[in-house]
């Protein structure tokens, strides 16, 4: 690449990074501001070291508990949905019969049903099962996911047919082929689907709000909403501190797993 072009690329990347980081910086800066300075510009961008906002935010809600709830629910949902999606996708792609496409179409059709129209029936089922105000109510209804099945079907179809023939010659059955051949070959794809499923669970708001009644089992989104939607105004400094507290673990996780996340996304781009 010519030197001039490289400079342009770097300039573009620096500007993009600055645009991306600016709101995050603003949140952290506001979280360390006095309330009066938070409303001034550019004063609000220069942190003042008001750590009392963090103490106030920390006292307002059991953030750690909310975070652990979200993490636990997210991991359980992801593992279960990944398992069911793998089995469903395998059945659609590899099992004999002409109904694979029909089954996939039916699964995809479930994605067209607006969530709001099944909210009440789902609530009634969860109530009858005695799952109200439990983690189970937030995990089991999402243990199967149509989009995850669709994605895995696409990935599985990209595997060469010869692999299966070779496995058959070696006497490997469907169960063995799935776990010994398909899964190891789909690791990047599984990572992508896992991230999708985890984020879906992490960002869930309405369903957990409806089926839970207390912070003991509620996720972070419901906990944060108390601060985002106050009736008459917003305490920006404490809200920013609360946002920083809840963002920090995710940010650390992203930094630690950055390589895998980027790899999985780029793999999706190539194969998808």
């Amino acid at each position, binding site marked *: 690449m010519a030197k001039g072009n490289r400079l342009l690329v770097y300039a573009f990347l620096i500007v993009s990074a600055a645009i991306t980081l600016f709101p995050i910086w603003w949140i952290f800066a506001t979280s360390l501001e006095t309330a009066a300075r938070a409303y001034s510009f550019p004063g609000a961008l220069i942190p003042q070291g008001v750590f009392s906002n963090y103490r106030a935010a920390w006292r307002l809600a059991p953030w750690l508990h909310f975070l652990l709830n979200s993490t636990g629910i997210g991991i359980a949902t992801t593992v279960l949905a990944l398992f069911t999606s793998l089995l469903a996708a395998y059945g659609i792609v590899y099992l004999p019969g002409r109904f694979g496409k029909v089954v996939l179409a039916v699964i995809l059709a479930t994605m067209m049903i607006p969530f*709001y129209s099944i909210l009440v029936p789902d609530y009634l089922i969860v109530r009858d099962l005695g799952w109200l105000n439990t983690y189970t109510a937030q995990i089991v209804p999402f243990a199967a996911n149509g989009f995850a099945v669709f994605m895995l079907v696409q990935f599985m179809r990209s595997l060469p047919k010869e692999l299966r023939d070779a496995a058959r010659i070696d006497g490997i059955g469907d169960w063995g082929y799935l776990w010994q051949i398909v899964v190891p070959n789909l690791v990047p794809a599984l990572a992508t689907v896992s991230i999708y499923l985890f984020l879906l669970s992490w960002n869930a708001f309405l369903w957990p709000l409806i089926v839970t*009644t207390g912070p003991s089992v509620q996720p972070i989104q419901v906990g944060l909403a*108390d601060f985002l939607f*106050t009736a008459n105004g917003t305490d920006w400094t404490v809200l920013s501190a609360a946002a920083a507290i809840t963002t920090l673990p995710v940010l650390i996780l992203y930094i630690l797993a950055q390589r895998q996340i980027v790899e999985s996304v780029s793999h999706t781009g190539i194969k998808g």
Partner: protein
Amino acid sequence: MTSKTKARFTASAAGAVVLAAGLAGCGQSTATPPATKSSAPVTITFWNEMTGPYETALAGEIQQFHKAHPNITVKDVVVPNDAALEPKLLSAVVGQNPPTISQMNPPWATGFIETGSLVNLSPLISGSQGFSLSSFYPNMLKPGKWPNGNQYLMPFNLGAAIMYYNKAAFQAAGIAQPPTTWAEFTQDSLKLSGPGKQAFAITLVHTYPWLAFFDQAGGDFVTKSGQPNPQAFAANGPAVKALTLWSNMVKNGSAVLTQGYASQTDFANGTSSILIGTTGFYPYLDQAVANKFPIGEASLPADKVSATSLFGGYLGMFSKATPAQQSAAFAFIKYLTSKQGQLYWMEKSQGYLPVRSDVAQAAQSFLSSHPAQQVSLSVLPNAVAEPKVAWWDEFSHQILLNDITAVLINKETPQAAMHSAYQQAVSLAQKDGTYQ
């Protein structure tokens, strides 16, 4: 949840409430209150949307109540806002699993009353453990009372729209007093505006700031039969008049439409100098403005009549609760709306007004240091509550809000917007019913 999705869900869930109540065989016309009174331990659940500073104040109220009623435990369940509380409540009622009591907007109650899900409080209020309603502000009680004369809801957290202004900016512009008429309001706003400054920062999270102007123009959106009132929407009617006032101010640069509560940010950093909101704004404004300039409070400028709008929530009790829970819940409602409970609520929440007139007399020292509450109390006699007809909530939160916004961003004329709003109100009334 967006207002559109909320409205879509509300419509389907409201239908489900009626269906489920019928299937469950609890569709009597009015739920009968309990007659038992027991001192055995009882737990009641109270769903509300008292977040932030109000959550702390309510926790204090509950603590006070527990001291006086050691056998009753109130389980406080806080939900972020009414857009979240409404679907949660509807799902719970459909699922025959409602809380003992809940905060709610009167239009939600219409469906609950029709299905017998809500307890008629009148026999309890007039019973041996009841209380007098004579001290309550009649305009606050009215939305909780249905045409059959039954009081289903009791007022709890209410505020009235007032005007906040930047005293230093007013002084610098040579304005001695806050405006008292629409003409003065427009003239003063022009004087206070200039490059980068628009005097009036419009808050449109809810419609109540605009409804105050509509009320002043003599408007009433609902006829006695519960139908949309065509005169209110007419080209020369009060809605168009109030919309024209605001839209002209936006066009001439003396007003600006803001998102969320960004109007408070504009006010605090001095780019605007007039805000319209309830007493609930004060703690946030006080904190944001700090000592940058003195904040003034005044009643809203008047037009045809001197009026303001009431905004807030009511308390309702569900018939699914056991008789012991209903007795305990009534004791809790009685405490929350008592003189003692309301005094505590006003002083600690610092955002809502008392729902009874005898509190003001007992709160003289508090009011002398809290001018926002003082001004709000002075305008209460002229405060107009929102209609409680079933179609109002969706109309107000979605259609009216969108139409006001469309006019303020110059996408529609006030006349066209109100014509369209009327058509939609008529459709909504056909869909949701006019029961009130």
